[in-house]
């Protein structure tokens, strides 16, 4: 296909695509309420303290663990909390079970991956957890926010998909110890 034909065909592609669902209710919900408050200094300080405590505990744990066995553990940011959905909502028991099973195996699964892949996954999970935390905080202030609820649910799904993917990646990988 030459350039002219390609550009002609591109000009025929639809510029108008209807979304599969009406996006207005989420927009209306967001614009009818005052803009959500930014993180207050108190929130930021609390988050910093939690992060610091988590990090130092993890470092201590790692240093103690390294003298006993060479197993690599998840980074401090990878500490998983119980999945929650604002104050008023609960995720189904099926979701919690699936997530708990995958989280329990995560350290072992990560150990089987190359350092680059492990780092990629850790960065992804950290981003997802950070997003989940921010959305939970925002939902506490604005519990009826439909856009936030939908995004949070979608983020939990992405987390689950990523955890499943980690398991898939390691399914056929052998450790040096296996040889």
């Amino acid at each position, binding site marked *: *296909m*030459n*350039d002219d*034909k*390609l*550009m002609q*065909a*591109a*000009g*025929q*592609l*639809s*510029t*108008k*695509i*209807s*979304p*599969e*669902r009406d*996006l*207005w209710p*989420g*927009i*209306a919900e*967001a*614009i*009818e309420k005052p*803009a959500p408050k930014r993180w207050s200094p108190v929130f930021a300080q609390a988050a910093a303290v939690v992060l610091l405590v988590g990090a130092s505990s993890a470092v201590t744990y790692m240093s103690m663990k390294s003298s006993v066995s060479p197993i690599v553990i998840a980074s401090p940011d990878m500490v998983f909390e119980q999945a929650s959905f604002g104050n008023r909502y609960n995720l189904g028991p099926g979701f919690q079970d699936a997530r708990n099973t995958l989280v329990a195996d995560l350290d072992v699964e990560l150990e089987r991956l190359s350092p680059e892949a492990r780092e*990629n*996954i850790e*960065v*992804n999970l950290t*981003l*997802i957890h950070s997003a989940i935390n921010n959305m939970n905080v925002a939902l506490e202030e604005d519990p009826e926010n439909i*856009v936030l609820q939908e*995004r949070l649910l*979608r983020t939990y*799904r*992405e987390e689950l*998909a*990523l955890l*499943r*993917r980690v398991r898939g990646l390691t399914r056929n990988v052998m450790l040096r110890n296996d040889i």
Partner: protein
Amino acid sequence: MALLAVGLSDYSQVMATASTDARVDERALIQQAQRADARAFESLYRLHIDKVYGICLRMTGNVSEAEDCAQEAFIQAWNKMDKFRGDSAFSTWLHRIAVNAVLGRIRKSKREQDRILAVADTEQPTVEAGETGELRDLSEAVDRLPKGARNVFVLHAIYGYSHDETGEMLGIAAGTSKAQLHRAKRLLAQQLKQQGFEA
């Protein structure tokens, strides 16, 4: 023949009048929305959502991300309504916000590779229901383009923005936009050739 000519002339006049009416209506809706009239803003949303969502879907290649970006774009547009001065068409202003929403989302995920890894299980192709055969293949090939080339191709080749406008929207130079378009065309031609399409 004369009757037909008169008929066509009338039709053109009706269409021109309808187009003018639509512009007047849109201007009125914009003014009402600038006075925080959510109903007027909803009418603007109904007028423009398909194109805004189209841009988001073609740029992200992912339904759920496109929905998020389109919602984000309209929420931002509402918050910035007072800044719209009418220097450009409302649709252009809105599309610029939508492009920013997409770019902001990609930037937030830091690396495109991370984004692909995180959403790979749920990604769906960006093919519009009416597209068949060659157009369908082209649409899917556009989805597979690298981010930079894809964004330029979508805005310039599909949505008809000039290189200056495309560059401004994407925060790149017009020359870079031209280079990315050249790259996109080369990659698309390669992909389509592999699928059996010849010049």
